[in-house]
């Protein structure tokens, strides 16, 4: 092999896809040519550096992702349809509550009362959703109950192996 052959077989050599005979010829040339040897050595070192990052086995990966449930988000049409139905139901409920609360008479105040109650119900629904926008959005996209629970538990509970600062420098707190 000459330097041009080395260049042509470089990928196969580094990718470990060279036959035994070609491999021997390739390495024989490396023994003679410092330029090619330096090039191959540098690229080999690059591959080793990439492999310095440890990975996980397929079994471990399956175990870690066993609780992961990925669901398709409902389409825009479905989301709009359900939101409209919810709003209509709330307004209807509000009107019925207003009717029951402010009387069934034929005067204008009862209709006004129904309107106010409907508005209150709608606003309550809006505020409830507004308090949990992340949860509301994420809950529709991904559900991973056990792993999510474990992760949140890990956030608030101290780990057994964690380094905890000594408490001797903290003034003792009396019961009173």
């Amino acid at each position, binding site marked *: 092999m000459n330097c041009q052959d080395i260049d042509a077989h470089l*990928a196969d050599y*580094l*990718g470990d896809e060279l036959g035994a005979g070609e491999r021997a010829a390739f390495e024989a040339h490396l023994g003679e040519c410092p330029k090619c040897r330096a090039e191959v050595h540098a690229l080999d070192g690059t591959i080793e*550096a990439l*492999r310095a990052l440890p990975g996980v086995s*397929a079994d471990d990966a399956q175990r*870690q992702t066993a609780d*992961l449930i990925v669901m398709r988000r409902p389409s825009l049409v479905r989301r709009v349809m359900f939101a409209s139905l919810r709003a209509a139901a709330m307004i209807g409920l509000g009107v019925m509550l207003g009717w029951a609360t402010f009387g069934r008479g034929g005067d204008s105040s009862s209709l006004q009362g129904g309107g106010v109650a409907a508005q209150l119900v709608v606003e309550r629904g809006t505020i409830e959703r507004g308090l949990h926008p992340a949860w509301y959005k994420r809950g529709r996209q991904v559900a991973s109950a056990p792993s999510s629970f474990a*992760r949140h538990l890990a956030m608030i509970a101290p780990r057994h192996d964690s380094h905890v600062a000594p408490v001797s420098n903290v003034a003792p707190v009396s019961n009173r």
Partner: protein
Amino acid sequence: MTEATRARVYQWAYRLLQNHHDALDATQDVLLKWLRYAGREIESGEAWLRRTTVNHCIDLIRKRRPISMGDGAAAWQERDRRRVTDEDIRDRIAMGLSGLTDSQRAVVVAKVYDGQRFTTIADSLRVSVSTVKTHYIRGLRALRASLADLGED
């Protein structure tokens, strides 16, 4: 969505992020993208997932969240002292990979981390074997500069 597919995505994410919680988050994000975009790409499903996972993880590392979820502050500081070299290697590799073209990155990750044969990579990317080999060598040469001192350790 098979268990094996989820595990594959997790393996790629873990390799680049070196952290279980971040890898699990990345797996969820990538699989959601998969549900939305699968089937619209030229390459095979596995190639799409690999490329998307690697790109997603590189984006995450670029954003460099200072504290990973799941660790207390004291535990994090302790780990920070102990694993500074690992973190450094991870970031350098991610930055090195981010400097490659999409095709070079796809080939390098498939070959180095998954140990796939050039013919398999060529099939999944729908390109010729010689193109894959060219991407591999050019990708490694581009990475050499950014990772040179790591390789000497």
